[in-house]
């Protein structure tokens, strides 16, 4: 076996691949060949590093040098300067916001506060090579469980750890396992919910792409604990890379005897198959997911019966999501006590968040439960983009709410977020600044819910549509004062009477924005004004005659020909033609276009 002196890790997450990570890997390999270094330096494409904002990323081991925004043309320089001459390529290093280049990624604010459990291997190992997973204690937990523990002991350990479902519900995982274990009926199924549909959340995808074996190992452990010998992963067909890596991982695990007949030479059998989702948000709900796996429309059904009683094909089924499973091998290896020490009393461990929106460091982060929103947004996230003012952070996706300045010091855990009118959800965290209109944001989420409502129950199918129409009227300045009360009432009816979680939580974005930004709603209704200046129907672009020099730049840029005026004469915007795209504002060098 070749012993490499150095490793070049290239981020192979979706974001970095979209910006040429593949050709960077190729040209790094070529450069190494050129200098005859291919036996001394290994290039590995790993899972997501999390620091998506500055991708594509190349990390050099053992010295932890972290190169950001690397282009294929930069690879020659990295090889010649760094690898041969031993000098870091300064211009590619990450520059800290307070100035100065960061020479070792351990010192980056982005990583300092993070504890990586679910993401432990993402960005470290080659996800297509089982040996690398094994080298980092992979399948050790499965071995321990099979040789030293009874199913009840495994369940007790997971219960003791306090691990709660990371898909949004926050239901104790160990308890779920126990329900399935106690049901004597056979066969039983272990299902992994990888139908990640929250807009703006991509942690499950990153785990599957960066560390697929962790999920397979945990599913086998769950199979042993609950008495199931079949595992099913329900994954979105829109995730081709994750599917590819899972297929490779399953194949390798079978070859090594970690899946299939007689796992680890014991009499325990367990195998995993993939089932593809076809794009329906409601399928994240476990009963809907099960119907979808059976080839039906993915409509939810009333619980009870819970899947542990009657799930896939009417048999006992345990459903957990990707991130929940990814925690399990670590809990077995390091013990429930170790896990419990991280996080808060009722929400133990860590949570992965997809930090996005108007924040400087967009990316995937994992922090202990109980970290405050302020630490996440301002320390790890590096604050608000372009020096703007923080306005709100949306957590929990379409089921969650918008939190404000006053919630910034709330420690994040399942119960605290619920208490302030939002929820954990799957961990999407979208930061908004002063330019974002909260009514529009609520409308955006309603649009999503309306589209994704399965149509089975009336409150969700009809009610949300009416909610959306009301919001539409408000953003157009056509609503009356009593519409606001109507809006609120309808929200409560929908929340109280819908069948499944999708409908019950659909009004949350509206309720939470009404609660925290009431004045903004009132401004839209009473003054026909959008305080954030984002609702187009309430906006007028006008030219300030004193500033206009008649350069014609705006008229040439206007896509619809709404601006007229002779050279060196003051121009005018025809409000009937104007589509309010804002191109004229960008084109004007004299600040002569104003938004009213």
């Amino acid at each position, binding site marked *: 076996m070749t012993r490499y002196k150095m490793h070049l890790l290239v981020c192979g997450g*979706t974001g970095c691949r979209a910006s040429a990570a593949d050709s960077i890997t190729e040209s790094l390999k070529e450069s190494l060949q050129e200098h005859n270094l291919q036996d001394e330096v290994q290039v590995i494409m790993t899972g997501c590093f999390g620091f*998506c*904002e500055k991708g594509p990323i190349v990390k050099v081991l053992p010295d932890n040098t972290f190169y950001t925004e690397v282009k294929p043309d930069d690879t020659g320089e990295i090889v010649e300067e760094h690898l041969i001459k031993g000098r870091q390529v300064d211009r590619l290093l990450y520059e800290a916001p307070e100035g100065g280049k960061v020479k070792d990624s351990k010192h980056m604010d982005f990583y300092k506060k993070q504890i990586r459990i679910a993401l432990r291997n993402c960005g470290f190992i080659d996800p297509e090579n089982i040996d690398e997973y094994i080298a980092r204690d992979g399948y050790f937990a499965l071995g321990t469980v099979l040789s030293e523990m009874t199913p009840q002991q495994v369940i007790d350990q997971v219960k003791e750890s306090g691990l709660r479902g990371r898909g949004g519900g926050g239901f104790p995982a160990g308890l779920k396992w126990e329900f399935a274990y106690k049901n004597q009926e056979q066969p039983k199924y272990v299902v992994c919910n990888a139908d990640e549909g929250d*807009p703006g959340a991509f942690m499950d995808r990153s785990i599957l792409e960066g560390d697929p074996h962790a999920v397979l190992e945990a599913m086998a452990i769950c199979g042993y604990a609950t008495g199931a010998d079949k595992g099913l992963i329900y994954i979105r067909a*829109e995730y081709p890379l994750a599917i590819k890596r899972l297929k490779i991982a399953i194949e390798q695990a079978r070859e090594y005897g970690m899946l299939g007949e007689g796992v680890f030479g014991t009499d325990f059998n367990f195998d995993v198959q993939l089932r593809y989702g*076809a794009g329906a948000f409601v399928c994240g709900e476990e009963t809907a997911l099960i119907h979808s796996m059976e080839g039906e429309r993915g409509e939810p059904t009333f619980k009870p019966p819970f899947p542990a009683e009657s799930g896939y094909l009417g048999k006992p089924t345990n459903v957990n999501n990707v991130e929940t499973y990814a925690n399990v091998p670590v809990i077995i290896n390091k013990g429930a006590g170790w896990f419990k020490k991280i996080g808060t009393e009722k929400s133990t461990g860590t949570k992965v968040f997809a930090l996005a*929106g108007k924040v400087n460091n967009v990316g995937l982060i994992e922090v202990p439960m109980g970290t405050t929103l302020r630490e996440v947004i301002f320390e790890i996230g590096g604050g608000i983009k372009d020096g703007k003012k923080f306005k709100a952070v949306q957590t929990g996706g379409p089921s969650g709410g918008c939190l404000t300045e006053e919630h910034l010091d709330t420690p994040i855990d399942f119960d605290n977020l619920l208490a302030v009118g939002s929820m954990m959800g799957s961990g999407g965290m979208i930061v908004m600044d002063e330019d*974002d209109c909260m009514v529009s944001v609520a409308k955006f989420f309603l649009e999503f819910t309306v589209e994704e409502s399965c149509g089975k129950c009336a409150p969700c199918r009809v009610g949300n549509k009416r909610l959306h129409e009301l919001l539409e009227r408000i953003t157009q300045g056509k609503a009356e004062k009593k519409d606001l009360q109507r809006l609120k009432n309808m929200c409560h009816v929908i929340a109280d009477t819908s069948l499944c979680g999708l409908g019950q939580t659909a009004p949350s974005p509206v309720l939470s924005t009404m609660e925290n930004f009431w004045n903004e709603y009132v401004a839209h209704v009473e003054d026909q004004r959008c305080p954030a200046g984002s609702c187009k129907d309430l906006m007028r672009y006008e030219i300030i005659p004193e500033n206009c020099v008649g350069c014609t730049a705006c008229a040439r840029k206007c896509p619809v020909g709404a601006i007229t005026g002779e050279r060196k004469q003051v121009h005018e915007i025809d409000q009937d033609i104007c589509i309010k795209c804002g191109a004229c504002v960008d084109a004007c060098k004299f600040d002569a276009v104003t938004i009213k």
Partner: protein
Amino acid sequence: MSRIKVKIKEQDLTKIREICQAHNNEPGELINVLQQTQEHFGYLPAEIQEAVAQELGLPVAKVYGVVTFYSFFTMIPQGRYPISICTGTACYVRGADNVLQEFKRQLGIAVGETSEDGKFSLNCLRCVGACGLAPVVLVGDKTYGRVAPDGVKDILAEYQDKE
């Protein structure tokens, strides 16, 4: 005896049979069957749905119900260069809507439609997981990051001369 009324080529029928047989004509495999069928034909028009229903021994209404339930399935042919605009939350707050409006304007088609020459089709999708590059646009497999409305023209131009 075939129950199919609408004309469908014999070779297409053979292909559908092949796909169904690969799944043991199991009605529970309907979604996987439809996925492979769509991969082959590009879309799932009524006659193909009928053929699938017949092979799996299901009512046509059930197949139609599944096809219309999931956004992944389409009953109209997609353009040679399918354009998908990410309208996930991260892209939304960074201006995806303006980008979408510009595509609609330039192509003269609505979301879910295909241009007359069959070249482009326009769709929205929710989060491709590249939020660091928001707003994101996909044309086929190619990803464009940090797209602004005035960059739309350049993206379309790349494909204008291609067949």
